[in-house]
């Protein structure tokens, strides 16, 4: 059993209980122990970075400090949190003057960034630590030829110089984890392109247009569903389809799942425990297919 401090972030607890519940259940079945620490805040993602980069570093570092104090590596479910925390963690580890500056700020909050822990995305833990074999060995439900359009989003992989997970031009870790569940990960056009999620709220029309292309490309390739690992991609594509109905008068009805949900299903978690009612686009077709 490996323990991690769970960095939950803002969006998941506020909007996606179905993500959280499936992740907690799946990870616990794979012997990953999640520790909830007191006092965590927002990770300072791009919207905060846009206001002040150095403040954002300090906020991210503050959260890392809590994990350092608990002597636990950190795990995130959200790619946005993963990216902002890792960028802060790695940058501060390497840039002494910046670290000193940030520690000057953190001193006000009684913290000191030491650089003693790692930040990991749960997909990274599944891929590098748990491993496909262990997942395969625990599978309790067949995927019945499910054709999955995998979508890893941006901030799991990029900026690759800092995140150092998988190969950003030829990513394979995520697809392998999907195939490990018995589903088929299919190719579709512009698979690695952004979903536009970060423009939601500021330029909804653009965000929606980008998301729409994604939905269309995946549908064209014959996907049964898109599986995401980031709450923003999920919201953009799931909720987005509701908006597409009113904006474009289109009904795509392409189910969007979190990877943790697919994983929970494969591991045999009772469907009733997964709060699937939170999906805007119903996933009954998927449930039927995998029995």
């Amino acid at each position, binding site marked *: 059993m490996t323990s991690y401090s769970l960095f939950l972030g803002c969006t998941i607890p506020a909007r996606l209980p179905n993500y959280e519940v499936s992740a907690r259940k799946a990870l616990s079945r794979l012997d990953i122990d999640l520790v909830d620490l007191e006092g965590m805040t927002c990770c300072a993602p791009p919207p905060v970075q846009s206001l002040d980069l150095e403040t954002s570093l300090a906020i991210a570092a503050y959260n890392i400090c809590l994990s350092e104090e608990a002597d636990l590596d950190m795990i995130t479910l959200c790619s946005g949190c993963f990216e902002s925390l890792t960028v802060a963690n790695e940058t501060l580890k390497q840039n002494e003057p910046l670290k000193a500056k940030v520690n000057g700020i953190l001193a006000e909050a009684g913290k000191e960034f030491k650089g003693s822990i790692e930040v990991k995305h749960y997909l990274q833990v599944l891929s590098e630590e748990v491993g496909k074999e262990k997942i395969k060995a625990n599978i309790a439900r067949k995927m019945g030829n499910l054709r999955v359009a995998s979508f890893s989003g941006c901030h799991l992989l990029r900026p690759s110089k800092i995140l150092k997970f998988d*190969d950003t*031009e*030829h990513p394979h870790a995520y697809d392998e984890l999907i195939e490990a569940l018995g589903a088929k990960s299919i*190719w579709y*056009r512009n698979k690695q392109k952004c979903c536009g999620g970060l423009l939601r709220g500021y330029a909804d029309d653009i965000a929606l247009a980008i998301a729409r292309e994604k939905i269309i490309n995946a549908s064209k390739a014959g996907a049964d569903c898109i599986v995401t690992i980031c709450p923003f991609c999920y919201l953009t594509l799931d909720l987005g389809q509701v908006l597409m109905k009113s904006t474009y008068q289109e009904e795509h009805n392409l189910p969007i799942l979190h990877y943790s949900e697919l994983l929970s299903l494969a591991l045999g978690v009772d469907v009733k425990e997964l709060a699937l009612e939170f999906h805007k686009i119903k996933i009954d077709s998927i449930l039927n297919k995998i029995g």
Partner: protein
Amino acid sequence: MENLKIGVFLSDCGKVLTKILDFDNIISFLKEIPDVTVVERGTEFWKGSGLQTIVKTIKEQKANRIIVAESLPKLSEIKIVEAAEAAGLNQNFVQVIDLKNHCAWPHRNVPKEATEKAKAMLLASVERAKILEPIHKLEFPALKSVLVIGGGISGIQAAEDLADLGFEVHLIEKAPFLGGIAARAGRFFPTDDCAACIQSPTSDVKTITHTSRKCIYRSGIAAISGLKIHTNSQVIKVEGQPGNYRITLEKKPRYVNETKCISCNLCSEVCPIEVPDEYNANLMNRKAIYAIVPNIYPPTYVIDEQSCKFHECEKCVQVCPTKAVELDQKPEISTINVGAIIVATGFKEYDPSVIKEYHYGEYHDVITNLELARMLDAFGPTGGRIIRPSDGKPARRIVFVQCVGSRDKRWNDYCSSICCMISLKHAIMIKTVFPEIDVSICYIDIRTTGREHEEYYEKARELGVKFIKGRPTEISHDPESNVLIVDVEDSLLRRFLELETDLVILATAMVPSEDTQTLAEILKIDIDKDGFFKEYNAKLRPTETKMRGIFLCGGATFPKDAPSSSLQAHSAALKAVKFLNTGKIVKDQRTAVVNEEYCGDCEFCPVSCPYNAIELVKIDEKHVVAKVSDLLCEGCGICIGTCPLNAIDLRHFKQSELLSQTKAILSINGQDKPLILAFCCSECGGASVDSAGMTMSNYPTNVRIVKVPCTGYLRIEHFLTAIKNGAQGVMVVGCMSDGCHHEEGIKMVEKRIDAAKTLLKEYGIEPERVELFNTIFVEGDKFAEAACAMTGRLEKLGPLRFSKEV
């Protein structure tokens, strides 16, 4: 020892200087100095009667040390030294100083002070004169034979030049056949003639006319007397020294006897083994026994060790009419002796598979320019047809992508300089033969800087080649239609294009040939930051290396086109001739010498020597000492600055000379600003002091100049001694940090100054009292400015006071 008789000659430059310098005062000062036996004043001393006066003084008055104050630095020095030598005086006993440019001109507003400084300068020369020792001329043997490494365009040309001039030449080529990258490229821009036409026969081969001099196929390269060609061979060891190298070569077995093979092709016909032909971009197969293309040298087949089954098969052995196939050949090691080496190893295409977004190596229809060149070659795998390698179908749409792996900080910073022209050449060739093919070139900037290159660009436009200003982000592949999609912004229209195409040509960077690093280590020459061989001076000595006797040409120093490679080949050949022509190398012993008694074998100096002139020698059972090669040593003194035991000295500029000059030049003051000692190198640093005078830039007389061969000579002790002897500050004036005439000298002294500053702080002395200045000749005003600024700074700091106890 004979008594010292010092003759001092003061030129007043046609009385121009008399308004500034009080010559009577100076002369009476000089006459007071013991050992100064002659003081002459005149208009000029570097030619005519002035020069005769010097000669007479040497001959008749037996003056044995000469100090001449004369302007026209370098020129006057050369003339005076020549005349003195002819009169029987050793060259090292002559000192020429420049009172005009180093004293009178820059200090013309303060004549009294200038006179005092002139006296200090002369006293420094007198003190130095007292301890000078003679320098002798050395001779080393030079073999009139040359090794040329690399059988491409430049190597072949250099070899031919040298052979024509009667030198023995060994041309060695790593591959089984001559030709290099140019031959593989098929044709040349901007003339579109064939690239195999890269070599001429010599004028000795009477049957071949001048007009056909260019063709390797028809050339008599093998017939040139004195030229020995070693293909399939590599240099594995170089020993000896310039003028007399002993080279060890390894020749890989060819398994076909060069003297017996008649290129009848019977062996290849019967050979049962087929493998992809890497020379032809794997677009066709070849046999295990093969020749790359028909027009090759040597006209001898070769067996590919990797694929041949040797004695299990022997079909070729049986069929060969001349019994040329020899399956039991072994690698041969041989040694040759040469006087000089020309490196012509060229460049190669960068492997673009690292640029993952372009999917080279993954998508078969993404190929490089060189691979396309094979397709365009009539002798090549498709006989000149343009196909999609993935399915062999004709390509109807082609997109070129420029700057692939070049001008890209992730891979190679630099512009490879010839890829634009190569793509234009290919586009033109395609459009000329197949006008219906759609050709687009995606570029960042089109660079067509050579003669007739811009017209070539124009021709491509006339032929309908489309130019898209934009660097593609990605090449993707639609598996259903088997087309490639090039995703690019037309930045002029600000429009996004997804170009569907059958074939993508990557104009990849050109990078150093394989084994460049290894060869550099064998030859002990430098490579630059991009991995190419480093020339001695890119501006004036582009075909020389810092090692005498080793020369460079062609793409070995940077990607270049055929005309530039040819020119460099001729240049390198000429340099080699110049070096070896007399059969001996004559050199002054202006070199460093290690005092073996004191050398402690710490092994720091060999690392610091930029010329690899220092080796470690075992002198008895217990002791190893450093030893300087008089041939390789260039007399910079960087080793002097390095030695932690101070056991090395320069014959032509001993540390005791520096010390006596330092003391003397600071001993006469005559002004009230803080004294500064400026150590200048004899190259850019000293030249900028000269030009400060020539441009009449003012700076105060407190700045006293002492020239050293290279700033890399200077030790921290020299700075401390200057301070101890009254200097309030020390300036070190040398070349630009990447322009040191001795490669590393300025960087060495920069580091030593840094260390000195650390020490000065500990001694309670402001570190800014010692400062480095990088200048070049045209920056005389900059030197004057620096001198003024340093003076101002020291005035602000206030005087350095030593405790009385010290």
